């Protein structure tokens, strides 16, 4: 039953002994167990299983990584990195979950700054000089438990 549910969720499966090079598009979901080199574009979810490797750019709604990934990721909804995951590349998403033990190296844009396909929102954070006069900075760092 559990297998059937997984198959319904991820109708596309690239087996553990398979190597794929090229461009791939799918609608619902894909489970990658083997090796992939190229580009993935989808409106669904991608799962890179433990032991699998992906080399290339990915654009999907949800990306879950348990294996090794090298390349740029763009997810409209969420990116999840499990403890066994290793991701080297740039990341753009609305939500990011990184489990303890996972390795992530790259530039990240998460949340409101991540703007779908067009890249980043260029709106900068307020500059400190605008936030407070430089002549008399109001600084306050309170050690926990300190008496006022």
């Amino acid at each position: 039953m559990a297998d059937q549910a997984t198959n319904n969720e991820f109708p596309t499966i690239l087996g553990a002994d398979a190597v794929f090079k090229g461009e791939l598009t799918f609608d619902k979901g894909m489970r990658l167990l083997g090796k992939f080199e190229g580009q993935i574009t989808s409106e669904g979810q991608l799962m890179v299983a433990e032991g699998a490797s992906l080399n290339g750019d990915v654009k999907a709604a949800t990306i879950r990584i348990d294996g090794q990934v090298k390349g740029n990721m763009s997810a409209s909804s969420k990116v999840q990195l499990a403890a066994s995951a290793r991701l080297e590349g740039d990341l753009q998403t609305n939500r990011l979950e990184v489990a303890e033990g996972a390795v992530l190296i790259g530039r990240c844009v998460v949340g409101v700054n991540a703007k779908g396909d067009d890249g980043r929102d260029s709106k900068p954070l307020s500059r400190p000089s605008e936030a407070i006069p430089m002549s008399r900075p109001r600084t306050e760092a309170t050690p926990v438990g300190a008496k006022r």
Partner: protein
Amino acid sequence: MLPRTLKPRGGAAKQVICPYCRKQSEVAQRAMSIFCPHCRKRVILEDYKITSYYAVREFFTCGDVVVEKKGHVVAPIKAGNLTVKGKVQGKISATGTVKLAKNGTLKGDIEAASLKIEDGASFDGFVQIGVVPHTPE
């Protein structure tokens, strides 16, 4: 040669990693600051809670730092664990976990053991998670 340690006189002890030289020392549980026995720099061990605008050249502690909802830190931060509920601008280096709570904003690079970004938080920068930081000579 074994590294020198600052042995506490009785009582409980804890291990701290100097944010300057990244070397480990043993200190008394109640110590609030020490001079690192390796690099001789002053190391603060206290936990901090930032509740307003706070801009400094560097903000280094071995304890935990919590930037509250109304807190806005503009500084490079080195800490044990960092929780951001407000705004932070600067390079982050944590020996533990960096957590971006709901509505937390962080702009800067992160180097930490683990990272948690809650729904609604925003972050922009280069990250190095789970990679042992470079130990200077």
